[in-house]
């Protein structure tokens, strides 16, 4: 009894507080100079930054020629990036050889695409079904006739003239929206119990995956016409589109298959025992779970497709990168030490903006779809 009871006899005096654990100095001590090795690494890091940052700053901003600069400025010694060249070539980078007076047509296509795509990507916006139907079915038709012309008194513009960012975006948007469902169907086909379908899907996937995209495109542009009846041609642009789509769908199929394999057999059986048909089971039960598992892989394929669009130069299309490489009259006028570099940097930045957005959006989607039900 006495062992349990306790009465304090001496009071404890106040002591000085331990070392500060917050604030800039404490943070630096903890994260930058915790040990001698850390200190050395920190110093080395700072030296590296001091060495690399100022020249980069000078090239990109300090000594760069702004958008309103002149060729002479770009040709000066010590001149940095020649942004003036980009701004004077911007139209070519965006539209390629698309007739200048007609450029309002791609502009409408861009605006319409943004107006339909952005609400589709924001979960809270209502009317998703209508929105999706408009984007997937109405939009491509409208865009095609707007861009190609030849109807409603619109001047026909052959696809050979399309170029720049316009081509990059068309190929990637069409490629992504078509290769995704196609990849799902191929993945399901590969798991099918029907031997013919299964063999066809495996054959297609393995063949396409075993061949570089560049040779698929090359085949499409050189070989395909040989098999065509005399006088019949398929548009180069269409061939590139089909090539890119089929290529990506094979990769997509394997990504989706990975997701399908992660779904326990019990899920298939529960659906079956309730009397749901095969397609109902897939649509309501299996695919929503499987696709959620493989969002990173799917977006990986999308990003790869977006960057691979630059390979369509093989069939003579002028996508963004090719437009930057093209030595047209303006490019020759603007010739200077840094013109080409600036062009490539610009292309890289545009690609980065699109790919990075896709990546961030996929992370957002993953978080949103995670209902915390993992068991």
């Amino acid at each position: 009894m006495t062992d349990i009871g306790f009465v304090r006899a001496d009071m404890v005096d106040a002591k000085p507080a331990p070392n500060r654990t917050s604030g800039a100095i404490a943070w630096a001590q903890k994260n930058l100079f915790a040990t001698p090795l850390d200190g050395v690494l920190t110093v080395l890091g700072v030296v590296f930054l001091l060495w690399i940052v100022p020249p980069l700053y000078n090239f990109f901003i300090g000594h760069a020629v702004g958008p309103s600069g002149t060729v002479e400025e770009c040709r000066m010694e010590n001149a940095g990036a020649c942004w003036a060249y980009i701004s004077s070539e911007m139209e070519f980078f965006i539209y390629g050889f698309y007739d200048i007076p007609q450029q309002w047509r791609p502009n409408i296509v861009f605006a319409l695409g943004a107006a339909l795509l952005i609400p589709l990507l924001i979960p809270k916006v209502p009317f998703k079904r209508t929105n999706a139907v408009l984007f997937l079915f109405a939009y491509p038709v409208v865009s095609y006739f707007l861009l190609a012309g030849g109807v409603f008194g619109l001047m026909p513009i052959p696809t050979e003239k399309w170029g720049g960012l316009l081509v990059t975006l068309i190929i990637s948007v069409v490629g992504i929206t078509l290769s995704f469902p196609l990849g799902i169907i191929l993945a399901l086909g590969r798991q099918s119990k029907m031997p013919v379908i299964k063999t066809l899907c495996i054959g297609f996937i393995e063949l396409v995956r075993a061949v570089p995209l560049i040779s698929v495109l090359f085949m499409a542009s050189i070989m395909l016409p040989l098999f065509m009846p005399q006088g019949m041609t398929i548009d180069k642009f269409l061939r590139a589109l089909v090539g890119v789509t089929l290529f990506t769908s094979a990769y997509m199929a394997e990504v989706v298959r990975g997701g399908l394999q992660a779904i326990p057999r019990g899920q298939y059986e529960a659906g079956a025992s309730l009397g749901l048909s095969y397609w109902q089971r897939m649509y309501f039960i299996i695919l929503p779970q499987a696709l959620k598992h493989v969002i990173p892989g799917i977006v990986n394929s999308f990003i790869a497709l977006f960057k691979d669009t630059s390979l369509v130069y093989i069939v003579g299309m002028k996508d963004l990168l090719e437009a930057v490489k093209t030595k047209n009259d303006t490019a020759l006028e603007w010739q200077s030490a840094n013109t080409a570099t600036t062009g490539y940097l610009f292309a890289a930045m545009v690609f980065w903006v699109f790919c990075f957005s896709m990546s961030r959006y996929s992370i957002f989607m993953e978080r949103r779809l995670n209902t915390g039900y993992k068991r």
Partner: protein
Amino acid sequence: MSQVSETTGAPTARSTMQISDTNVAIEVIGMHKWYADFHVLRDINLKVMEGERIVIAGPSGSGKSTLIRCINRLEEHQEGQIIVNGTELTADLKRIDEVRREVGMVFQHFNLFPHLTILQNLTLAPIWVRGIPKAEAEATAMHYLERVKIPEQANKFPGQLSGGQQQRVAIARSLCMQPRIMLFDEPTSALDPEMVKEVLEVMISLAEDGMTMLCVTHEMGFARQVANRVIFMDQGQIIEQNEPEAFFSNPQHERTKLFLSQILH
């Protein structure tokens, strides 16, 4: 061994349950099944009348789960016939779907759809298989959720529920299709001991309503209380079947005696 046993007349829940004399729910005739070269089910003959409640017992690997999985064609049989509600199961997908609509199944691991809420789990099949309007399907779903005593969980996800609750949802999900036969594949084996009772209570009340039930289970108390026939399987064969009273007090086959001596302490 009686093929179909009458109710015993004992003052248990059993006496209130009606068994049809004429309507056959399930008939299995000379059925065999192989997994590759392994003969899992051998010459199974079984006739289940409407309203019968059958418990299938036996050691693991005896083929009891495989047998009830054959009854809604989650597994294929290679020889013999399985006739459910008058429809023979063949490779014909239409017939399979027809049978599955009328046969509910409850799994050991619940197999709820984790990406759907409880209510969506319950209404998915009625809406898309039976074509019932959404509002009506939801009303039915709530009715069965109340019956299994968890209406307040309707808008949660399966992962937020306990095992016992999930299994009750799984039972309710099958009931929403208003099946004529319910199959239970070890429904309490994956549950914490504390949760077994709540699931068994739901199953007992289902039996009292006259549902035709086939249960693979190790709950011998449940078998005594509800079953009107116990089937004992070993090595893919039906070794013995009898009324529960006689089955437990006076087993005939040596294998049955051994099994019972091991599980009844």
